[in-house]
């Protein structure tokens, strides 16, 4: 099972970070995603893209951790986008109510573009 990768150095404040979920989002990999996201938000990142390109399966523990990430992002005024979500995983997220809380994009580039403006706009504006 692949580790979630960022592939890039830690971004400076205001930039958008991309976190890659592995092929199976469960408790362990979910916690890794959570750790990566929190680290980036602590360094000032206000937009996160979680890329599900390699993800075949997500279990309910993984979903609940993702919800935790979304909650934390909201608390910090950050936005979250999911990209490259397979049809099956998307239906799962819909069933459990995640899709109302995040930006959805087919590709990582689209998600980055959508979130770019959020990363440079101060909260409240």
């Amino acid at each position, binding site marked *: 099972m692949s580790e979630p990768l960022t592939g890039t150095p830690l971004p400076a404040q205001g930039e958008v970070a991309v976190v890659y979920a592995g092929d199976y989002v469960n408790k362990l990999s979910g916690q890794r995603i959570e750790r990566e996201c929190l680290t980036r938000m602590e360094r000032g990142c206000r937009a996160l893209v979680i890329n599900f390109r390699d993800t075949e399966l997500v279990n*309910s523990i993984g979903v609940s*951790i993702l919800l935790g990430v979304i909650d934390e992002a909201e608390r910090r005024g950050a936005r979250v986008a999911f990209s490259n979500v397979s049809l*099956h995983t998307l239906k799962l997220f819909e069933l459990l109510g995640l899709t109302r809380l995040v930006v959805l994009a087919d590709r990582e580039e689209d998600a980055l573009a959508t979130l770019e403006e959020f990363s440079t706009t101060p909260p409240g504006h």
Partner: protein
Amino acid sequence: MPVRTPRQRRILARVAPEQFVGRGEQLRELTGLGSARAEQKGLLLFAAPQSGVSELLRQTFDELFRQRGGPAPVYFAFTRADAATTAAGRRFLQTFLTQTLAHRRDDPALVSATPTLRTLLDLAAPQDYEWVERLIQDFERAQGEGDERALVRLCLGAPQQAAAHGARSVVMFDDIHAAEALRGEAALGPTVAQTAAQWGVPFVIAGPRRRLLDLLNGSLPLAALEGLRRLHLERLKEADARALVEGLAQRLGVPLNEETRDLVVQQLEASPYLIAAVLDAARANAASLTSFREFQSLYVDELLGGRVGRRYASALEDVAATPALRRGLLRVLYESLSNPSGKSPAEVWMKRLGADALEFERVMRLLHMHELASFHATYVETTPTTVWRDFLRVSYRLQVAAEPRALVVADTLVEALKRAPQTMARHYRRESALGLSDVLRGFNFQRVPESLLRYERWARAYRGMAGEEARAGLAAEADTLQLPQVVHAASCASFHPPMRQLCDEERCTIAHGFESGVYADAGEVVWLAVEVESKLEAGRALTELWLERLEQVAQACGFGRVRFWLVSREGFSAEAAELLDERDAYGSSREQLEHLTALLSGGGGAGDAAADEFAIELPMSEDTELIAAHTVEQIARRMEFQPEAINQIKTALVEACINAAEHSLSTERKIYNRFRVEGDKLVITVSSRGLSVPVTLPENGVAADKNNGGGEGAKGRRGWGLKLIRTLMDDVEFERVDDGTRLRMTKYLRK
């Protein structure tokens, strides 16, 4: 029956409820006697030896005791230690009062106490004081009067007295055969039956199956016994026996592997008593059961001086009270083992024992009751069970032949080890038999395509065809033949014992029936069916050999009109098929048999009836649910499920495994998955020992149990797993099983 949760305190039961396997149905029936709506008031329990009947009754006691507001359970086992019927009657009265009052006080500790009658009076609640005092006074008066019959009837009448004052009970009598040995004016067995039948209170009378009715009838049949429900307790089914071995091994901390487990079940013939004895011995000796050698070593120890040996020794003492008679009996029993048929004339036995007619009859009656031998008036047949035969050998060699103990131990162990592979091979052959007896028993004048019984026609038309296509072809066939109505079917060996040397009993069946609707000579027919063992198509020589053998059997048994049916898994060669046609014998392959079975059971054909089943066992550790998901993916692909459906199945299974891991209370930490392909659906069961269901399970799958994964993530995920499972699968149900709960999910194939 209420869900039994683990760690319920035991009162009389010696085994924890969750460890008591294979008797769920019987336990439900017995505890059902406590229901106010129960139609049956009395039940006779016919028990095979060593079938665990006493533990079943004790489990019933505990179950009923825990049901507050219901009748008080009373368990009473007769014993020779009472010596006289009056002592047994007194002990029954004391037991009845103790256990009834214990239940009414909700005081389980009182059950195992032995308070005096006067102490019991002090313990009685105000609403019970009057009838308890009256009973005790009546008893003391009757005791003083010296009228034995009146005293016994009074004691046995206690449940009726109690019921008249609102104290309901369910009374269970165990070991009724021990009552026969008690001194007294009246036979206690019939007295118990007559009295119980008059109580109007639910009761159970348990005893050896071969003697129970005789013990209760006495010299005249009792009208009271007619109409009583009869429950038969056999040895465990093999699957339950395996579960018992595993459960005991785990509880006692005895290392066990599957191969040894299976040998334990086969060699001890699924006897709960023998299995428990061996596992207890393993624990006591800090031994493990991870090899045949370890098991056989323990087994021989048990046979020579452990609980197993003592059990049989005790039974022999019961049969033959004096040492001289016992030695004589051992000799005769041992010598009978060498008789190929196992049968000897009764006269020979009587002479060899040197017993008079009365003593001989008593010995035979007891041997028959304990199922150590079968007495058929003119001949005696030693019971051929493995453990009994081993016991006879070691006992004879030690006690009669006075051989050195070390020699007997070594020989017995070596023989047991040499026998073990044969025992298992026999078991596997039995399991793999095609079930001809069952098929024949299903014959009832049905019309079936002739192709199913004529291999040559089948091979020409259907060989290599897919199941559904073959089914369609069979449905359209014009040439049919009418099967007879089979009224009796049994193994060939039971008609003609020499057949035992030629094939396994399960593979050769003789069925008697009628070919027309009228039961007349002209319609009488005997089918002789055999499963021919051949790795490839059965050749002409083999086919001819079996036809001749069946012909010999038919002649030896004096059968009139016969029909031969040979079944060979891979079918028959062209020459063999030709021979079958020449002799007007039927021939079928396994595939034909499957289609026939499906037709007879009302299914569409082999494609519908046949089901593949896969099973995997996973440890509860990180991500092992993925292994299950990948396995089910492969199975679903074979069934040609759509990709979306496969993902749904995988996700549901992952959630089910996580659910099992979270809710299982078992320390073995394993999840069992079964995948059953049934035609147009895939049925998945997920279970784990000690799996408990969330406290409530409303339709949306959100459980009220706060332990259901709360705390994972800010919003938690209570009930998400079950919600996902219900949404993604077509049918979902939780099934109660002996050891907890099992989740069963079904996905239908939509093409």
